[in-house]
């Protein structure tokens, strides 16, 4: 008995029965590649900040974004473009390398000033001094610089309470640098979601922002101008 069947649909000689699943597989592969790229990049960014984590006692901690805004000279949306070895402070001259504190100098490209103002109102970049507690990790930290778009709560070092009694020439040097006001003071944009520095405790008051929309954070900060 002869079986009749409709001819299968074709595009350029290739049947739809082949094209459709190939198209779906292509979509799946593309999504998987994007996922792998994002996960790998996010892990690398976490590692950069983890390399700068300080295990110690902070000068002060803040209970809210408003409190951090009060302490900061300027709140900036931007990203690091470059980092290099920076200053070395000799705290204990008799202790050799173990008596020193090492810093990195990072260039922060400003996307938007959210609150406060930089010392130079026309500045498009700021120099952020990053304390590097684990000296042996410095090359790896430099190589893994985070380029994430982030909110930074920064204090100009000339305005730092610790530098109240320095002389004018030293103050001029300190004025070139900014520092983040602790481990609460960097809030990262990871796929549109707020992520604090990885070492920030989940019970920290600022950690309530973890997982919230990054745009919501920006709107809130603009309201604190």
């Amino acid at each position, binding site marked *: 008995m002869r079986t009749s069947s409709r001819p*299968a649909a074709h595009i350029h000689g290739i*049947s739809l*029965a*082949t094209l*459709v*699943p*190939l198209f*779906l*597989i292509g979509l*799946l*592969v593309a999504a*998987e590649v994007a*996922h*792998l790229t994002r*996960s*790998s990049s996010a*892990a690398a960014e*976490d590692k950069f900040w*983890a390399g700068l*984590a*300080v*295990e*110690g*006692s*902070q*000068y*002060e901690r803040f209970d809210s974004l408003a409190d951090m805004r009060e302490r900061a000279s300027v709140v900036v949306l931007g990203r690091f473009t470059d980092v290099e070895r920076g*200053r070395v*402070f000799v*705290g*204990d001259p*008799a*202790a050799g*390398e*173990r*008596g*020193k*504190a090492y810093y990195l100098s990072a260039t922060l490209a400003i996307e938007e000033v959210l609150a406060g103002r930089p010392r130079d109102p026309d500045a498009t970049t700021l120099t952020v*001094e*990053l*304390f590097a*507690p*684990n*000296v*042996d990790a410095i090359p*790896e930290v430099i190589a893994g610089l985070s380029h994430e778009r982030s909110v930074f709560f920064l204090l100009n070092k000339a305005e730092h309470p*610790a530098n109240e009694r320095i002389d004018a020439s030293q103050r001029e040097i300190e004025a070139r640098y900014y*520092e*983040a*006001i*602790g481990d609460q003071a960097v809030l990262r944009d990871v796929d549109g979601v707020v992520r604090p520095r*990885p*070492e920030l*405790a*989940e*019970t*920290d008051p600022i*950690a309530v922002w*973890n*997982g919230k929309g990054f745009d919501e954070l920006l709107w809130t900060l603009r309201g604190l101008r």
Partner: protein
Amino acid sequence: MERRSPLRHAAMWALTAAVVLAPIHAATPTVAAHSPHPFGSNHGHICDTTILSQCKGWAAGVDIALYSLETVAPHNLKQATRDAIALLQPTDLFFSEVTSGDDIGVFDGNYGTTGYAAGWTSCAVGATYSGSEASNTRACTPSDIHYNYSYGGRFDTQSESDSIACQEVGHSIGLRHWQDLAQRPNTCMYDPPIVDVYTQHEKDVINANF
């Protein structure tokens, strides 16, 4: 010969793709919102990854050197460090004060504005590393404690100096910050510290691991 339906054909291709791609996706390292274990912060011992991370892996003896620490209040960090060590007794962990060849070196000075660290513990320059980052067991020896007088406001009174010394000595043997605000009056491991005591829980875990 019966032709396979296009729908069934497509379903088989999709299933094949899912079977191939699922293991790749599962093997992708996911990024934790919070990594509890900063790189290089295991100061000479293996730490677990719980929030109240307590550490194990050292022998019970620790050589600690108090290099050139100030001895005048409110900066008597030499006595504050000795007091913190005494507070960890009685436990299975014992410290010996040495003048060189330490497991932990303690230093003070003006180290600049270190992103708000009034005191910190870290791996010493040229330390020997062990463990692995992948398993969250990265360790180093020797390690250093630094008291930073650039944040002089945190050392205005001897009790403040004592609380910082208590926390840094705790860090040096692997204790992490308590994250429960209710514990702040009971332990110097809540940051910033306001007391110079350790909880019995911290001593129990030291005994369980050393």
